[in-house]
């Protein structure tokens, strides 16, 4: 096993002749010794004893730093890599406070219910070890009605999530008086999950929480924990709306780790096509697993996760080798909670050797340390990358993370510029607590919870929002207060997360069974479990008999097939408003509202392993619609970029625009530091709305998160990177690393890449050579 000879295992992997030629870089992170400190003098003897009985007789320096900050009454955020003893950073000060004062309470917030359960177990272990008179209770959507009252009345620590706080607890604060009045600490774990719109919502929920606490005379302190991001202090302050001290010095030991960059072999040098990163990473995972290395493989989609896990298990089925005991499980959203638990435990205890996962395992779910992490393609952000890489690595024994690049421009860019991983540090997480849409939603919720007093502070502009709400009749201003005056329950209609809350349950009806085997959000269901789709669940294949969107259920039946299905999703758009113009006369852009409609009308049947297309089917489902923010880049014939396009033949113009659009979309995330899945894009040779050629880029969160506004500002930089990429690529006429491989429709077009380059040059010129916008 890798445990003792782990360093050798890493070296063995790197010197493998099938691997070595394609390793473009190995970055070795050296081992780090622990920094210890003594228990603080004021530590309650019961806590000291509880810790001792769990084998803890001193603290890491950062745990002690947290304690000291708490003792001084400060808010703090602690940045914690995997396995650095994070929970003591908050459990110690909280337990001490609860032991000191029998009326004191604490609130723990986790982004998911699964994490809440993990942490309740962790807290209970400490409580039991010291026989402490503290009760921790989970209060979330799964808490049965019958135990809710007991949790409210006797839970000294309430473990919940922001969604439940928002829609269940705060609107009913009068049932929680004792809790709010005694609230001393609010712990926000996995803080990095609260970014983008979701984070902006959470910041406003915290505003509401602070307001309700103040109403009951309490002023709780905040303790936040984050994985490595560029700006933990800034994000923490944005979330809680006041200064927060950041604890970034980690006193926990770390074993050696190798980060390996792997660029799959070229299969078509002319077109720049490389072996598929999914297959290559599966091969690598198989190799590692076969050599006894416990491995996690991160894939990009739920479908990929299931398919790759099946392939791996099939590979290990060969009864003539020693490998048949190797067990690999898929881990993704949509599994039932019990199944997830089973897999997590199997990984911790070692009965499961490998796991193929989506980013669902990025968060701090406890699966113990694995020996290797294989990352198939850029996961969208540096934080995600390091979180995934961090799944490999324990306190002792070397480990490795293998990044397997795909042919996508972003992957090839990063293989060529590995310093972007290693030098630039993690990216910033951005939220906008004052985002007018999000903020107005929470002013409503706050007004429902407690009438606003005249002049009461709450966020940037409460007076203005209340005046607007009064006009619409939602609040009533009388007697110096603003009262909620609507029969609705506002929190019910406001979802903190972009993903829609209504889930479709997947029911297995094989042989009269009637069993829920999984669930899926509605938009995904339309693309993954339409009628006749093949649904794969932990390696079992099912055929979808009926997707009943109205009743939120999908009936499936077990069936062995030699193919899987993939929906062909079509997207169309409609401009709803033109709010802001920018750019220059020769390359104007418009920021505004856009309606994005996506529908799957057809699906492909693809043979397993070969991915050969063996047939089509029809899908009859209503489209998904979303209103969001977009930037439209326009090409009037009076400007140079537009003139270049105008001089082209119709087909060439389309091919070049598509190349321009694809390149800009691929490289924008590098500048915006967002996930590539955060942006949608399309192009129009003659746009229905503007009547001239146009390229649209939009925010894929309903309503927008400010990404398009940021893109409008950094467009010159994005164009510059795109041009650099196209100019420096030595492929013949476009490859996946620059302007992409031509669609079938454009196969006849020559000099597509050269055309795109000319348009990019002209565009960059039009917005100013060094990035400044022209006039």
């Amino acid at each position, binding site marked *: 096993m890798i445990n003792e000879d782990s360093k050798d295992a890493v070296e063995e992997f790197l010197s493998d002749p099938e691997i070595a030629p394609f390793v473009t870089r190995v970055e070795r992170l050296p081992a780090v010794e622990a920094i210890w400190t003594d228990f603080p003098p004021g530590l309650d003897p019961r806590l000291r004893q509880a810790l001792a009985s769990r084998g803890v007789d001193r603290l890491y320096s950062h745990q002690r730093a947290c304690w000291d900050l708490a003792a001084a009454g400060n808010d703090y955020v602690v940045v914690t890599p995997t396995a650095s003893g994070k929970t003591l950073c908050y459990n110690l000060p909280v337990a001490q406070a609860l032991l000191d004062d029998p009326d004191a309470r604490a609130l723990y917030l986790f982004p998911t219910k699964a994490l809440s359960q993990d942490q309740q177990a962790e807290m209970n272990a400490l409580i039991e070890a010291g026989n402490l008179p503290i009760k921790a209770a989970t209060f979330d959507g799964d808490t049965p009605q019958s135990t809710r009252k007991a949790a409210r009345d006797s839970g000294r620590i309430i473990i919940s999530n922001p969604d439940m706080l928002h829609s269940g607890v705060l609107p009913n*604060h009068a049932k929680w008086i004792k809790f709010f009045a005694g609230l001393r600490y609010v712990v926000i774990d996995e803080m990095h999950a609260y970014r983008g719109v979701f984070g902006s919502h959470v910041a406003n929920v915290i505003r509401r929480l602070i307001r309700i606490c103040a109403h009951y005379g309490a002023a709780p302190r905040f303790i936040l924990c984050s994985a490595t991001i560029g700006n933990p202090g800034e994000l923490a302050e944005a979330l809680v709306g006041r200064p927060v001290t950041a604890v970034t010095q980690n006193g926990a030991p770390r074993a050696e780790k190798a980060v390996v960059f792997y660029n799959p072999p070229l299969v078509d040098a002319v077109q720049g096509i490389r072996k598929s990163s999914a297959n290559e990473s599966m091969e690598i995972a198989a190799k590692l697993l076969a050599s006894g290395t416990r491995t996690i493989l991160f894939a990009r989609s739920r479908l990929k996760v299931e398919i790759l896990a099946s392939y791996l298990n099939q590979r290990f089925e060969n009864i003539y080798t020693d490998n048949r005991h190797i067990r690999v499980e898929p881990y993704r959203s949509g599994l039932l909670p019990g199944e997830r638990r089973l897999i997590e435990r199997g990984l911790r205890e070692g009965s499961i050797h490998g796991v193929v996962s989506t980013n669902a395992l990025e968060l701090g779910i406890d699966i113990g340390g694995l020996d290797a992490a294989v990352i198939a393609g850029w996961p969208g952000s540096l934080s995600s990358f390091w979180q995934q890489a961090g799944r490999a690595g324990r306190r002792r024994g070397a480990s490795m993370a293998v990044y397997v690049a795909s042919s996508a421009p972003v992957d090839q860019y990063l293989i060529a510029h590995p310093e972007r991983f290693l030098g630039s540090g993690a990216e910033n997480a951005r939220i906008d607590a004052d985002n007018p849409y999000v903020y107005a939603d929470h002013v409503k919720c706050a007004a429902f919870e407690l009438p606003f007093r005249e002049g009461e502070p709450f966020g940037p502009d409460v007076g203005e929002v209340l005046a*607007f709400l009064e006009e*619409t*009749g939602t609040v009533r201003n009388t007697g110096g207060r603003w009262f909620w*005056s*609507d029969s609705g*329950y506002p*929190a*019910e209609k406001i979802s903190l997360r972009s993903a829609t809350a209504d889930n479709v349950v997947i029911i297995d009806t094989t042989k009269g069974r009637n069993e829920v085997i999984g669930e899926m959000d509605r938009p995904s269901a339309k693309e993954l479990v339409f009628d006749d789709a093949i649904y794969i669940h932990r390696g079992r294949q099912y055929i979808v008999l009926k997707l009943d969107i109205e009743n939120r259920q999908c009936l499936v039946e077990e069936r062995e097939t030699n193919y899987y299905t993939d929906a062909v999703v079509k997207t169309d758009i409609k401009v709803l408003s033109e709010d802001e113009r920018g750019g220059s006369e020769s390359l104007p852009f418009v920021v505004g509202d856009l309606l994005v409609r996506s529908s799957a009308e057809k699906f492909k049947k693809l043979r397993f392993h070969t991915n050969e297309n063996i047939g089509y089917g029809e899908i009859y489902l209503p489209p998904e619609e*979303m209103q969001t923010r977009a930037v439209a880049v326009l090409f009037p014939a009076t400007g140079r970029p537009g003139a270049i396009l105008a001089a082209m033949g119709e087909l060439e113009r389309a091919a070049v625009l598509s190349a321009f659009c694809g390149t800009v979309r691929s490289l924008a995330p590098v500048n915006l530091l967002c996930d590539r899945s955060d942006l949608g894009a399309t192009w129009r040779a003659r746009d229905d709305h503007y009547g001239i050629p146009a390229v649209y880029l939009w925010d894929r969160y309903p309503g927008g998160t400010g990404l398009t506004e940021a893109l409008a500002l950094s467009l010159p930089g994005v164009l510059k990177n795109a041009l650099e990429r196209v100019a420096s690529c030595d492929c013949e006429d476009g490859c996946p690393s620059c302007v992409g491989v031509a669609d079938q429709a454009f196969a006849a077009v020559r000099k597509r890449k050269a055309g795109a380059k000319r348009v990019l040059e002209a565009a960059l010129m039009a917005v100013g050579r060094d990035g400044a916008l022209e006039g």
Partner: protein
Amino acid sequence: MRDRAAPSAPRTEHQAPEAFPDGWTTIGDGIRYRETTRSGPVAPARSPVELGAFSRRLDKLACSAGGLAFFDLETTGLSGGSGTVAFLAAFGSLRDDGALSVRQYFMEDYPAEPAFIETLSAEFSRAEALVSYNGSSFDMPLYAVRRAMNGFGPPDPKPHADVLHAARRLWRTTIGNCSLSSIEDSVLGVRRAGDIPGSEVPEAWFDWVKRGRSGLLARVFEHNELDVRSLAALFFLIAEAARGIGWPAACDAVGLAGLQSRVDEALAERTLRQAIAAEGQDARNRRAARPLMRLLGRNGRPAERDELVGFLPDDAAGLFAKSVHAERRAGDVAEALLLAIESAKAAREGGTLAMRALKRVSRLERKLAGLVPDRHSSG
């Protein structure tokens, strides 16, 4: 899709307030009051009432009919939460002549809420016991929240009979929807003309506070008053039926026996025996034998209980009991096996009963093959 703020709506002109409906007097800052007494006695005020039939928690609790407060709140929403307020309350109580007097309190605007709560508080503390329709889940918790929101402590605990629970037992299987208006219609034979639907009640008040329009209020007042009158009528109807007096329309016998068993088990037994006789031969819908068997078991009458096995329905549990009975009483192992197989088939796959039935099947099979000595196990 995100719910965007609508473009700013034209500001509604605040019209001069319309006249307030007749019959109301102002009794405090922003609080109005009216009392309505309709002729015709409902029940004698001095007669004692037992509340036990309405809830096991009220076992042996009796008070005089005159000490009951029938109450109902009208609110700005049905979802609860801190932003939902009560703006109208009705309290009904019996006068000495047996007629029901209904006192209603109306809150004119938000700032009057503390005064409103004090008025309600006085009414609640006067009562010996409270009677409501769904008040234990809705009205009382909401009242408690309103008290908390205005800095009052929790309400004084009072015996509280929620008639909805009893009504569900009596009419769920026969009428289905047990809303007060549905029961009123089917059981009391009351049809209200022009009653305001509950969903429009919040808007009636908002129309008054925001725009000074009182048009809908009169209908809400009437609705609120009639709710309390129907509540009182229903309460006495059920209380008497639970004591064997009268048989409410469309009433389910098994449900009625359930209420009766709380106050008079002999009466419940009679009702259930009649129900068994009335159920006839259809073995699917038999519901009366099981509660009667439980009652007899409770009272130490096992022999009489076992005689009723044949009246159990042919569902998984019924078939199981019949199988046990066939083996022990009739000594018919083959029949017992057959019944056990049927029971296993009817039971939910993988459930406890299915497991027990399967175990029983295999034991009976062995017993039938002579492999197991005869023993009266419970299977």
